[in-house]
């Protein structure tokens, strides 16, 4: 039961507001963990801190023992931590295929010299990309500009990109936002696939039913700190957790 991620006493304030307040937790390798809590609990900020998009005022975090704090987002990504954003962030003017090729995180081909001197073929990557897109039902859209996809297709594209990237640790920021049940089921499957391929997953979500069905355990945040960690079934009746959620519960069917 190896620990893949350890966060220790992360603190972050904006102006006078303490967004993250002594947040600490650990993640087991291969687990699917939900990160839940009412609005303003600091979940998104915590993700920003871990992925390098914000710098904490104090505290530390380690991915496979490698310190994360102080590194730039691209360096943390190269260590294997991929995070999504609350809305799908496709590269709109690039084709769906290109979105996937870029997601494959192979950086060696992107020099100016290689681009000019020897046109790059990328055949094996294209085959793999096609395969992934077919799996997600986006095969027919392979050459379409990503900006022309519907909302649901953009979500799927996001997951296709993640499949292409093969992260070590995946942090999903509210993947179920505005998603219908059929798509939700597809996402659920995708997460299972990721884990089967060796990823560890963290899901920030308000949709507690989804959390219940997908996650091994949950981390509950409130007012910037972790107030509980454990299996959802055990925590849902925990008085502290219920207290924090009073008025915030969103049970999607």
């Amino acid at each position, binding site marked *: 039961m190896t620990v893949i991620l350890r966060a220790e006493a992360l603190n972050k304030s904006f102006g006078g507001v303490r967004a993250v307040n002594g947040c600490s937790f650990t993640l087991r390798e291969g687990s699917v963990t939900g990160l839940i809590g009412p609005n303003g609990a600091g979940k998104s900020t915590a993700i920003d801190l871990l992925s390098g998009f914000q710098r904490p005022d104090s505290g530390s975090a380690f991915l496979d023992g490698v310190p994360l704090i102080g590194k*730039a987002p691209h360096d943390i990504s190269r260590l294997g931590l991929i995070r999504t954003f609350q809305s799908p962030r496709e*590269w709109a003017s690039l084709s769906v295929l*290109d979105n996937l090729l870029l997601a494959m995180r192979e950086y060696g081909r992107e*020099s100016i010299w290689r*681009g000019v001197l020897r046109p790059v073929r990328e055949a094996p990557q294209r085959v793999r990309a096609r395969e992934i897109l077919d799996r997600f039902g986006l095969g027919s859209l392979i050459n379409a500009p990503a900006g022309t996809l519907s909302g649901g297709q953009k979500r799927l594209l996001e997951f296709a990109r993640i499949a292409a*990237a093969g992260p070590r640790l995946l942090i999903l920021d509210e993947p179920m936002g505005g998603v219908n049940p059929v798509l939700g089921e597809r996402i659920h499957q995708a997460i299972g696939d990721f884990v089967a391929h060796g990823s560890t997953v963290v899901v920030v979500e308000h949709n507690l039913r989804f959390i219940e069905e997908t996650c091994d355990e949950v981390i509950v945040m409130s007012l910037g700190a972790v107030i509980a960690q454990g299996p959802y079934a055990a925590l849902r009746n925990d008085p502290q957790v219920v207290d924090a959620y009073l008025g915030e519960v969103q049970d999607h069917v």
Partner: protein
Amino acid sequence: MSAYWITVLTQTCIFAIMGLGLNVVWGWSGDFDLAFYGYVALGAYLTIVLTVGKPLPPIQYILGYTLPYPLAVAIAVAVVTGVAAVIGAVALRNLRAIYFAITTLGAISVLYVVVQVYTPLFNGFNGVAGLVTPMAGTLGLSYDSYGYFFLGLCATSLLVLAVMLSRLSASPFGRLLRAIRDDEDAAAAFGRRVYRSKLKAYLLSAAIAGFAGGLFAGFLGSFNPTAWSPQEVLTLYAGVLVGGRGNVRGVILGIFVVYIAFIELTRFLPEIPGNGAFAPAVRQVLIGLLIIGMLKFRPQGIVPEPLGLDGPRPGIRWRFWQDPRTASAAGGEP
């Protein structure tokens, strides 16, 4: 071909090379770099002061060697790229959109003022001169044939650069630049070094600018502040905008349309006695209106790039003018 048309075509080829350089930073990277023409100017100044020898007082300028023209251009490109590295390092770190534009505007404004006021640099208002028919001696060219030679030089340079940049556009690097332009946070989340990539593009564009400046110096024979006044600068930007930013062939088309059409158009304007600046001023008014009009009604240019790979192409289907196998497009906002 008449001497007039040789001149017009040579000049337009040089501007097209500039347009291609501007396209790298404005079209692919998506940054509105107002300092670009400053790099052109620097390249031109340096080329001249490296080839024409020591200044005769009261003229003053730095350096003053008599290097062969190709070597001078190469050195000029290197120096310009160095300057761009400094400005780029400052401007690209955290600045985007308006703040980036304002900072680069400030950079070129300062350069413009310093060059004019600090005479020991490049002789201030009067500028530097004396670069007459570079390489004519070594190649044994007569005065008549020189025009053809230089046109050939510029046209070939343009062609070679266009081919190289087309390839680059369709390459993973070109794709990366556009991804960063579309969403740089997502690019960072997938491991891309946003700052470093933008800086590379910036340096490439500056190098092309410096090179164009070197050719421009050889063409004009001299260089002074009027050659890079705000009006000249904006004409270039209009050309790139008209053609289609992000699209190598589109940019070349746009430059040719704007420069040749405008030169021809304003030839027929009446001369107003007492106001010698009338015709050029009208031309500038038209350029300004062109910029506004394009931005309002056709921001993607005459020849919008194909979005996606073989996806639906908006607007005119001009197969020749659209870049081959382009991985992405710039059919959107500047």
